């Protein structure tokens, strides 16, 4: 049980990361990488509300991300509001979309939940692809960001601040009484209903919240890469957040934070092989570098089979063997 005044360990580490970002001398490239980690962290933690806390697989979360991402340039184009409003607008649209979807899926559970979210996201994708006038179709839309945030480092810090606030909010939410109800529903929905909770409503709320914060992540993302295309809505992108969340570990709040970081860093590391001229086992490293999803998929597979609790689980194991060996050495003296 954490002392109310002392922030959780992950938050301290996260804040130190922010401090390093602000004051350490880093290249624009590193700042860009850091921004991506920050934004995807928010997405993964939001996703985990549905996966880890509520216990369902959503294969359509790219839709929320994409809606938020599209919201920024579209709102800018239609209403000519300042940047902050466009960000907020992205969240609002994501909320509305989430509300609509949650009505449709309110009775679904398990594999049907996964496929239905898949299908509904697919609807959005197809609409986005075809509605070229609105969304730019296959070509996508350019997204601008205010001059104040033009440099990679400034946008990184901006994203960091926003995401930190969001993470604290999310942490509060999952540890609130309502959050505990959702976890109870995950354990045993029938019993929760018997006690008197409206489980459909709690689940819908969780989904919408998760969607809203995912939308925020998306709204931060499109000005970051200064571009948005319907690819962000495709289910393979949903797959990415699932991978991040599970590799990191869905059992702890900070698991997806680790997962997002590992995902981005690993992807970047493997992709950098494309510049190399080394050859391993007859295969050019450069060629392997183009296929980072291969390694990501293998790691994902190994995690699922051998350490389903992800990195969080591996860390727990270490802690246990460490404390056990400490105990043993104390006994022996």
């Amino acid at each position, binding site marked *: 049980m954490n002392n109310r005044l002392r922030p959780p360990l992950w938050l301290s580490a996260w804040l130190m990361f922010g401090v390093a970002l602000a004051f350490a001398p880093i290249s624009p490239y590193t700042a860009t990488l850091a921004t991506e980690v920050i934004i995807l962290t928010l997405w993964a933690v939001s996703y985990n509300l549905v996966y880890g806390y509520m216990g369902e697989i959503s294969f359509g979360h790219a839709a929320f991300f994409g809606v938020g991402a599209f919201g920024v340039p579209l709102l800018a184009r239609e209403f000519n509001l300042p940047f902050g409003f466009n960000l907020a607008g992205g969240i609002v649209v994501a909320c509305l979309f989430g509300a609509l979807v949650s009505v449709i899926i309110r009775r679904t559970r398990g594999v049907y939940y996964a496929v239905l979210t898949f299908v509904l996201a697919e609807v959005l994708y197809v*609409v986005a*692809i075809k509605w070229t006038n609105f969304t730019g179709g296959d070509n996508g839309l350019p997204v601008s960001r205010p001059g104040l945030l033009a440099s990679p480092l400034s946008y990184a810090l901006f994203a960091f601040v926003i995401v930190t606030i969001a993470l604290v909010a999310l942490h509060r939410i999952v540890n609130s009484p309502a959050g505990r109800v959702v976890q109870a529903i995950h354990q045993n929905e029938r019993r929760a209903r018997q006690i008197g909770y409206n489980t459909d409503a709690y689940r819908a709320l969780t989904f919408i919240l998760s969607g809203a914060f995912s939308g925020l992540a998306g709204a931060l993302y499109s000005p970051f890469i200064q571009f948005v295309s319907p690819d962000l809505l495709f289910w393979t992108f949903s797959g990415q957040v699932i991978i991040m969340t599970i590799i990191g570990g869905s059992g702890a709040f900070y698991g997806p934070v680790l997962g997002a970081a590992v995902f981005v860093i690993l992807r970047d590391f493997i992709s950098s092989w494309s510049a190399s001229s080394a050859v391993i086992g007859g295969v050019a490293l450069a060629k392997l570098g183009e296929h980072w999803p291969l390694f990501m*998929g293998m790691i994902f597979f190994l995690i699922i089979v051998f350490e389903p609790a992800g990195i969080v689980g591996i860390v727990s194991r270490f802690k246990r063997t460490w404390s056990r060996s400490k105990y043993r050495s104390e006994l022996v003296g």
Partner: protein
Amino acid sequence: MTWISLANQLILGLSTAAIYVLVSLGLTMIFGMMNVLNFTHGVLYALGAYFSYLLVKLTGSFWLALLIAPLLVALIGMLVEHISIRPLADRPHLIQFLATFALALVIEQVIRLVAGNDAYAVSLPVAFAQTLSLGSLVIPSYRLFLIVAALMVCLAIGTLLAKTQVGALIRATSEDPEMAALLRVNTRAVSTTVFAGGSALAALAGALAAPVFSVHPSMGEEIITMAFLVVTAGGLGSLRGTVLAAIILSQASSLGLLAVGKYSDVLTICIMAAVFLVWPTGIFGRTEGR
């Protein structure tokens, strides 16, 4: 819109439905048996296409490719089942689903690594290379062949399931694997067989689709999207639901082309979404997910 163009689209739609049916039947049977939605089904379809391309190059015979590619992929399917589902037998089915997703990712990347990102062409078999003229209706005969082939496979599967001992084994094990085991049925072998059979069907679909859709690495992704739509709209585990949903999906697309032109995709996906609104677990689906 004339009767001719309507009939043309109808038949084209049915030929696409044929491919969807072949892929989705295996998927829904595997779900019915093991309660797992096999994500690798898409890449197995792609492998069927790639193997058939290779076999046609090696042997010059499309028919030989049609025979051997599914057998090869059946073996790969058994390998997939062995490493992704069996070791996770006592874990929730959704975890097994994710494991197949991971494998699908890996296999697709291997395909890209080995065969590159380009598309390969497979020419139509000589027997069906021409078009058929029925009055003023002109249809590629290969499309008709696809429809007939799918019909024959459906009939074969239907007969197998309804009339044979093996079929009874499959139906019983799908319904109540524990009771089947109590009756001395080797349920693991039955499951693996269904998985292999489903994989072979996917590969057959891929091999048949190759001359029409070309052989390219994202074909797995594209087909799994359709296959998921079809099996869930039809009702997971229901064979006739799969056939019905495949026809609805492909006809919505092909007839939609006549109706709304380039927005046929939107129409199709909206029709499918409407189906889910009415039947959240599919047209012939069970009310509660198993």
